[in-house]
C-alpha cells in the first residue's frame, strides 16, 4: 500500500539477512534430525515378569498406527478401548492413520533417518507382516508372553498361520474375517452361488458386476484361482512359481471371457472397495464384496446399504484370514504396546468387538478355553440372525496361501487385464 520502490528494496534486504539465517537453521535442524540416534526398544523386556511390564507401561502413551477407514472400528478403538486402557493401566492410547504399504514405507523411512519411531503398535497381516518381517522392522518375539494369549484358539489354522507364515511371536492375533460377496436380496432374489454361476449371471446382466483394484478385489481373484484349479490344497506349502504359471492363465481367461459384460465393459475398475460399495449403494452394480462377512450388517446399520442387503458365500470357498497387531522395532514404548495388545485379547474386549452393532469382527479366542462365565456370554452372542451362520462360514472357509501369490496376482492383473493398450 503506497510503498515506494526504494522502501520495498530496503525491506527486502532485511528479509534477505533473515532468510539466510533461517536457511542455515533449517539445514542444521534437518541434519540433526538425520543423526539422531534411534531409541532402542528395551531388549530386557523379554526377561521381565508381566507385572513389571505393566508397571513400566503405567503413565505412558501408546501410538497405534492403523487403518482408519471405518467409523465403526474407529468408534470401538477411540471410545471403547482407549478409555478402558486409560482407566486400568493409565495408558494414553492414540490411534492414528497408517496401514499396509504406507506403514511399511513409513517405518523404512524412519529407520533410514534414524528418527525416533512414530508408532508403538501397528495393525497388520499378510503381505504387510511379510514385508515388515523381511525388512527386520518388527520387534519380537513378544506375543506369546501376553497372559490372555492362553485363551487364543491356537488350533485354528486361520489364526495359527498368517498367509502361511508363522507369526513366531512377532504379531498377536486380534480378529478373524472371511470374504463374502454382498448383494441386495430384493434386487437379486436368486444370486449365483459359485464362480461358474457368477460367470453366467454376469453375461445375463451386462454392466452389473465388477470388482475393485485393492485388497478385496485381489482376494476375489485369488479365490477364483483356487476354484479354477481344483481347490486351495495345491497352493499350500509356500510359493511355487511353476504352479502359478500353470494356474494363473485360467484366471485371466475367465476374466477376459466375462469382461465385455462387466461394468464399463471392463475398461475401468473402482480403485478400492469403498468406491465399489458406492456403486452398489447407488444401484450402479448389483454386487459388492468385503473381506469381512459381517460388514454388510454394520453397513445396513449405518444406512449405507439397503436393509435387504445380504452376505453371500460362494460354494467354491471363500478366504478366511486373521489380522494381527505388531510392535515396530523402532517403537519408543514396547511395554505400553504389549499391555494394550493384551487388553485387546481379553474376553471382554473380544466380545465387545464381535457384536454386530459394534464391529462384528470375529473373535480369535476359543470359547472352550475361557472361564465358564465368559464362555456362556460368547455362546449367547453367536446367534445373530443377520449374520451368516457359523457352520456355513466354517464349511466354506479357505486359508490364505503364501503372500507371493497375492503380490503376483495383483501385479499381473494390472499388466494383463487392466492394461489394454498394448
Amino acid at each position: 500500500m503506497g510503498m515506494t520502490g526504494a522502501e520495498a528494496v530496503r525491506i527486502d534486504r532485511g528479509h534477505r539477512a533473515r532468510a539466510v539465517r533461517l536457511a542455515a537453521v533449517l539445514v542444521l535442524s534437518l541434519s540433526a534430525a538425520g543423526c539422531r540416534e534411534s531409541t532402542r526398544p528395551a531388549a530386557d523386556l523379554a526377561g521381565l515378569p508381566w507385572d513389571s511390564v505393566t508397571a513400566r507401561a503405567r503413565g505412558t502413551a501408546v501410538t497405534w498406527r492403523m487403518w482408519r477407514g471405518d467409523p465403526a472400528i474407529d468408534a470401538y478403538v477411540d471410545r471403547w478401548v482407549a478409555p478402558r486402557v486409560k482407566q486400568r493401566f493409565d495408558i494414553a492410547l492414540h490411534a492414528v492413520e497408517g496401514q499396509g504399504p504406507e506403514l511399511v514405507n513409513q517405518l523404512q523411512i524412519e529407520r533410514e533417518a534414524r528418527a525416533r519411531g512414530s508408532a508403538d503398535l501397528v495393525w497388520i497381516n499378510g503381505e504387510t507382516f511379510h514385508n515388515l518381517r523381511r525388512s527386520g522392522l518388527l520387534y519380537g518375539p513378544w506375543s506369546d508372553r501376553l497372559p490372555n494369549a492362553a485363551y487364543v484358539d491356537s488350533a485354528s489354522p486361520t489364526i495359527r498361520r498368517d498367509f502361511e507364515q508363522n507369526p513366531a511371536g512377532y504379531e498377536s492375533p486380534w480378529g478373524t474375517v472371511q470374504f463374502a460377496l454382498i448383494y441386495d436380496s430384493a434386487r437379486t432374489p436368486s444370486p449365483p452361488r459359485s464362480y461358474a454361476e457368477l460367470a453366467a449371471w454376469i453375461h445375463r446382466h451386462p454392466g452389473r458386476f465388477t470388482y475393485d483394484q485393492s485388497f478385496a478385489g485381489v482376494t476375489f481373484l485369488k479365490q477364483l484361482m483356487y476354484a479354477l484349479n481344483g481347490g486351495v490344497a495345491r497352493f499350500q506349502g509356500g510359493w511355487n512359481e511353476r504352479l502359478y504359471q500353470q494356474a494363473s492363465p485360467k484366471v485371466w481367461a475367465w476374466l477376459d471371457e466375462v469382461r465385455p459384460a462387466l461394468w464399463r465393459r471392463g475398461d475401468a475398475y473402482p480403485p478400492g472397495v469403498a468406491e465399489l460399495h458406492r456403486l452398489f449403494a447407488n444401484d450402479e452394480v448389483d454386487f459388492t464384496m468385503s473381506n469381512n462377512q459381517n460388514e454388510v450388517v454394520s453397513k445396513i446399520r449405518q444406512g449405507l446399504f439397503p436393509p435387504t442387503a445380504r452376505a453371500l458365500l460362494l460354494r467354491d470357498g471363500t478366504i478366511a484370514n486373521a489380522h494381527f497387531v505388531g510392535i515396530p522395532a523402532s517403537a519408543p514404548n514396547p511395554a505400553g504396546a504389549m499391555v494394550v495388545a493384551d487388553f485387546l485379547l481379553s474376553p471382554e474386549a473380544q466380545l465387545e468387538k464381535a457384536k454386530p452393532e459394534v464391529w462384528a469382527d470375529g473373535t480369535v479366542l476359543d470359547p472352550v478355553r475361557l472361564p465358564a462365565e465368559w464362555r456362556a456370554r460368547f455362546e449367547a452372542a453367536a446367534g445373530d440372525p443377520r449374520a451368516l451362520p457359523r457352520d456355513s462360514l466354517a464349511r466354506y472357509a479357505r486359508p490364505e496361501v503364501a503372500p507371493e501369490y497375492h503380490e503376483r496376482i495383483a501385479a499381473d492383473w494390472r499388466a494383463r487385464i487392466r492394461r489394454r493398450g498394448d
Partner: protein
Amino acid sequence: MRRGVWLAGLVASPVIVGLVYSFAGATGIAGFGAHGSYTLDRIRRVLSEQAVWESLWWTVRTSALATVLAGCAAVLAAALFRGTKTLDRAATTLAVLPLPIPHLVAAATAALVLGQSGLLARVAVTAGWISAPAQMPPLVYDRPGIGLILALGWKEFPFLALVAFSVVATRGAALEETARTLGAGPWQTFWRVTWPVLWRGLGPAAVAVFAFAAGSYETAALLGPSDPLPLPALTYERYTDADLARRGDAFVLSLLGLLLATGVVALHEWLRHRVRRLDG
C-alpha cells in the same frame, strides 16, 4: 537478483530435500532394495515402460485442457463483469466463491455429480434425455478424462479469475481508457488491449495451475481412469506396491513429474522473453 535466489532457495528447500531423496531412491542409493551404489537400471526400466509414457501423456493432456478451460472462463468473466454495478459485483463474488473448497471435496463432489449413478444422470433420466442412468456417457474413471478436466477446470477457475480481475483492474483499465479516447470500439479495445494484457498477466498463474493439476493426486485418484493411470496415481501405486522391489519406481516417476513442471515453467519463461523482445 541474488536476494531472489536466496528466498527462492528457502521456499524450495523442502522440494530440494525431496528431489535429493528421490534421486537417491531412483538411482539405488537409498530406499528399498538399495545397495548403496549408483545405478541407472531402475530409471532405464521405468522409462522403457509404455504404460509410463501413456500415463505422462494422459496427465499432460488433461492438465493442459483443464488449464485452458479455467483460463478461458476466467478471461470471459474478467472481460464481462468489470463494472461496479450490483450484478457485476455479485458475479465476481460468485466466481471466486469456490476458492476455499479443498480439492478433495471438489473431486468427491464431482464423482457424486458426474458418476453414472450421479446427480447429472438422475436429472437426465427425470428430464427424459436418457431412459436409464447407465446410458449416461461415463464421465468418471473415463479414458478421455472428461470428469477430471471438468472438476479441475471448475476448481482452478476462481484462482485464475481472481488474478484476471486484478490484472484488468490494475493494468487494463487505464490502457483501455486511452484506447477508447483514441477512438477504439469495444471489440478493438478487447482484442488490442484487454486480451493481450490479460493473457500476459495470467501466464504465470496458468503455469502454476498446470503444474498443480499435473501433480494433484486426490482428483486423479477419484476421477481418473484405470488405464492409463494418471501420473500421480501411478506414482502412488508404485510407492505402495506389494512388491517392495518396485516401490523405488515411484522416485523415478516423481522426478518425471518434477521435470514436467520445470519444463513448463522454462517454456513459459522462454516465451515471455521472446514476446518481450518482439515488443521491444
